[in-house]
């Protein structure tokens, strides 16, 4: 009897979990739809968008720049060491650094850092607003949390993340130059010519277009986790953690599919 009950309980738990996940997916889809509807229906709160752009940008710029700078340094060091091993001299360091940074590492690293920095801040802020009834207050004062809170954050992300990524492109390439010049003894003219010789606009666009997808993923997940927070201070902590973990995992997973699609249409 106990065994049967145990199995039933496992099935029940699994079913309950599956239901909860489907419900969350449905509510997430509803949030995305509602955001699109509000964008068409009501004027956009540009003041809020600007505030959020400044917050996301200012909060994230130092850490994204530093992260990609060191990533560029590591790439140069690894490439230099490998090519020295095979060819006896550090070849193609500038090419490897610029292509890797612009097409893949700068967009992904920037998205991950911003998810951890600004995404967490959004989930915590909206989560606190939810548990202190500030979101209900928005409804009673004639507006809607999607219009006042979600749209400005999504738009701010869509505008700021590409800018941060372009800065990260330069920062990574510059980090690579520091190592190439100081440690590997590669002349600046050789490094920069390696950087740009084979680089075409489509290579830059490959990385640049990804940032819009990442911006959408992080902003929607962070807002969704924030405005669906329940359970007081503990709930805010859980939502914030969930927003960061889910955003980061989604960025990494969806990155593969976006890369595949961009490659299929020739943007690579």
């Amino acid at each position: 009897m106990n065994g049967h009950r145990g199995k039933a309980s496992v099935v029940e738990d699994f079913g309950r979990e599956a239901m909860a996940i489907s419900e969350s997916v449905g509510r997430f889809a509803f949030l995305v739809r509602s955001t699109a509807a509000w964008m068409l229906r009501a004027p956009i709160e540009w003041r809020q968008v600007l505030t959020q752009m400044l917050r996301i940008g200012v909060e994230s710029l130092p850490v994204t720049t530093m992260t990609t700078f060191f990533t560029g340094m590591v790439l140069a060091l690894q490439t230099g060491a490998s090519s020295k091993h095979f060819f006896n001299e550090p070849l193609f360091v500038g090419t490897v650094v610029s292509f890797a940074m612009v097409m893949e590492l700068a967009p992904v690293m920037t998205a991950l850092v911003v998810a951890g920095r600004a995404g967490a801040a959004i989930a915590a802020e909206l989560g606190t607003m939810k548990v202190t009834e500030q979101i209900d207050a928005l409804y009673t004062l004639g507006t809607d949390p999607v219009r006042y809170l979600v749209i400005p954050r999504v738009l701010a992300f869509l505008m700021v993340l590409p800018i941060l990524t372009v800065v990260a492109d330069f920062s990574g390439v510059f980090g690579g130059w520091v190592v190439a010049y100081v440690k590997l003894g590669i002349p600046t003219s050789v490094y920069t010519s390696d950087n740009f010789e084979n680089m075409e606009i489509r290579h830059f666009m490959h990385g640049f277009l990804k940032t819009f997808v990442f911006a959408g993923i992080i902003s929607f997940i962070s807002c969704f986790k924030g405005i669906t927070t329940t359970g007081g201070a503990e709930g805010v902590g859980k939502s914030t953690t969930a927003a960061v973990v889910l955003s980061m995992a989604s960025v990494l997973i969806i990155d593969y599919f976006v890369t595949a699609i961009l490659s299929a249409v020739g943007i690579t």
Partner: protein
Amino acid sequence: MIEARGVQKTYPGRPVLRGVDLTVQDGETLAIIGGSGCGKSTFLKCVIGLVRPDAGSIKVDGTDITKLTRETDVAMYRRRFGYLFQEAALFDSLSVWENVTFGLRYLTNIPASRYRVIAKDKLALVGLKDVEDMRPSELSGGMKKRVALARAIAAEPTYILYDEPTTGLDPIMSDVISDLILDLQKALKTTAIVVTHDMKSAYKVASRIAMIHEGRVLASAAPEIIKTTDDPYLRQFVDGLSQGPIKMKLKDFEPETAGGGKGGEL
């Protein structure tokens, strides 16, 4: 006029409202009393459309909120209400005057250039001066409640809903807030529902008191009648006694719901 008929609401595994029937006449101030978790605040949120009832109807001036499905219709419906939240729910990122005038942009056509003057007037109505540029985090609990009250009345609503207006305040500040509600009701001539478990406040502000117990309206009468009632449930609640029919019922109830029922609200 607000007419609620057979309003029911169940949260997962926990029925909160089991058929509430209440009418609030124009100009009346109805106080709803009842123990923690009895459904008073849920009922108030059903009235303004923040919570959708599972069954029943709530008509305000003939419009049934339970029948409205389009967001714009619900927003139009809500325009007639001012709502004072239990914990004030002021926006942390905005100053006091921005909080007070927040709804004007969405609810009225008043030009933004007049907002600051309006905020000053409304703050004066609730007894506050020179706080316009302060942040909510710089205010005491009583001041927050007053600012929230100023925000609730800023767009000059027809109905004001007060959710536990004196909770968390010291006895003197509670009395001050009750006086303020009374003064505002007289000055603005609005219809109000005050959800409270503070009997002193209920007696002071209400023209009628209704008690909700186990999701239903147990009784509804003028404060003078409530004061002298012989009903054992009402008597126990208004006198604040641990012994009585409500306690007995709770004791029978506790062992089964201790895990996820009333205990979950703490």
